[in-house]
């Protein structure tokens, strides 16, 4: 099927595609720069805190989206990988004095290996059965850590106080470095998604999501594709967990492995647009401020209020725009491309 002379339509299509990709990158660069300038305007420490968490959950949801959105394997147990990252970094730093930077990568690698080990049995399950298995496994992980004295059991582990510096990721006085770390993590996960999207894995994952049988007939190794997505997704989720541990400087099982975290990773992607490049960020920018603000206004006793608001938002999106908020804009973009 290789012709010596390419038809003009082929070249035109290739050029249009290349410039579309380039524009996406330029727009992303502008958005990142704008976000990077935010701390100049947001001086309130509480609001800075909200920004940091928003960026962190945007990065986490972006990682979740690789497996859940692109590959279509809806995990509701990502709190497990988040916890592995948080605990690996904390234990290595607090007990052995290992740099959190190294601990973060070690936690990421452990999570990726764990995701492969769990994927081996779980990816034989389909749809809801897979999701249920992920919930159960994450809960088992939570119970294990609860009863594991080496990891501090239910009491958790406190990070030692030290001077503010980048080497130990400790910034007790000024939160802005955390903001840039979280932004950096989000940019990395965004770029990973951006480049994978236009690669063999990216196409294969979407094919697996849409129709595994047809995918297999086209040479897609379905099981291996799911395993690759799970490992990459778990790796970056654990990096997010490591960051969170350094940020709060105290972790216990409930504060890093609760089911709530699994939901907070899945929901932004679902709300913003599952399997899209910007969906997780858009979803996080809406959900996380709502969560944090209602939590502080409703006080400790009203911790259910944020969940009621999520539930309502998800129902509204599911009814009005099942493909997420971003799908409102997609239609116009598509008809533009068709010309």
């Amino acid at each position, binding site marked *: *099927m*290789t*012709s010596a002379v*390419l*038809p003009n*339509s*082929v070249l035109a*299509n*290739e050029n249009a*595609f290349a410039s579309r990709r380039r524009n996406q990158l330029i727009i992303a660069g502008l958005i990142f720069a704008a976000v990077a300038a935010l701390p100049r305007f947001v001086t309130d420490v509480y609001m800075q805190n909200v920004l940091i968490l928003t960026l962190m959950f945007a990065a986490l949801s972006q990682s979740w989206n690789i497996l859940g959105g692109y590959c279509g394997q809806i995990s509701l147990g990502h709190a497990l990988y988040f916890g592995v990252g948080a605990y690996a970094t904390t234990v290595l730093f607090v007990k052995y004095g290992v740099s959190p930077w190294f601990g973060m990568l070690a936690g990421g690698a452990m999570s990726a290996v764990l995701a492969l080990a769990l994927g081996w049995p779980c990816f034989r399950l389909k749809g809801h059965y897979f999701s249920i298995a992920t919930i159960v496994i994450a809960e088992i992980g939570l119970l294990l850590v609860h009863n594991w004295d080496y990891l501090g059991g239910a009491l958790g582990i406190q990070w030692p106080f030290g001077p503010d510096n980048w080497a130990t990721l400790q910034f007790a006085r000024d939160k802005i470095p955390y903001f840039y770390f979280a932004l950096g993590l989000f940019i990395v996960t965004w770029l990973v998604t951006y480049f994978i999207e*236009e*690669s*063999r894995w*990216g*196409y*294969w994952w*979407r*094919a697996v*999501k*849409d*129709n595994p*049988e*047809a*995918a*297999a*007939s*086209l*040479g*897609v*190794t*379905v099981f291996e594709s799911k395993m690759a997505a799970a490992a990459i997704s778990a790796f970056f989720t654990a990096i997010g967990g490591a960051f969170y541990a350094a940020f709060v400087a105290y972790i216990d099982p409930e504060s890093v492995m609760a089911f709530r975290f699994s939901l907070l990773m899945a929901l932004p992607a679902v709300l913003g647009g599952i*399997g899209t490049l910007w969906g997780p960020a858009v979803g996080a920018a809406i959900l996380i401020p709502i969560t944090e603000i209602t939590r502080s206004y409703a006080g400790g006793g009203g911790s259910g209020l944020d969940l009621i608001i999520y539930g309502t938002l998800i129902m509204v999106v599911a009814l009005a725009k099942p493909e997420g908020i971003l799908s409102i804009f997609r239609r116009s973009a*598509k008809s533009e*491309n*068709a010309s």
Partner: protein
Amino acid sequence: MSAEPILKVENVTRRFGGLVANSGVNVEVRQGEILGLIGPNGAGKSTLFNLIAGAFPPSEGKFIFEGKDITNLSAPRRCQLGIARTFQVPKSFDTMTVIENVIVGGFVRHPGAAAARRAALEVLDFAALSHRANSPASELTPPEKRRLEVARALATQPRLLLLDEVMTGLTPSEARLGVDLVKRVRDQGVTVVMVEHVMEIVMPLVDRAVVLDLGRVLAEGTPAEVVRDPRVITAYLGERHRAA
């Protein structure tokens, strides 16, 4: 035509519980031909088709593709070796555009996305779908979906292409486009096996036909031989029409 068949189906049996869908089937597919696999409903055509593509394993028997035993190979592995298929009910990737659907198939031969995209554009041109390249696959008309199935399979650069009822449900003019496409595929050197039960379309198109009935090979030969075979007439039309 070389003497060595591209595909040998040797004594293949497939049972589903108590039901025997294929029983001791022997078929040889010759290099470069268009072979029609025909037979009444429930004859076991689709089962044999799925067995060749590797969707599930046979209960007994062997498949030899280009001299190699592929009986125990998975569907993706068979695709890598050069066997591609379409589905009777089109299974397009509906959250992807037309060209993205085709690119998925291209990765078997092209590791890089740019090369896979270029190959996909050429295949779309070949299958007369270029104008739909950026449309969501879910918005294609039924005949376009059938052509997308073929285009996607062609993107894997097969040596053996299995077409499962690609003409069914098409209007005569759409079917003519389909026939033309199949002929051009064969002219590229691709061997074609097609399951079809619209006899008027298959018979002029194929070089040889294999007739299945009740899971067994009933007759085999050129279209002219097959349609005159009394057993075939009986299988299709019933005992009563045999005299006619």
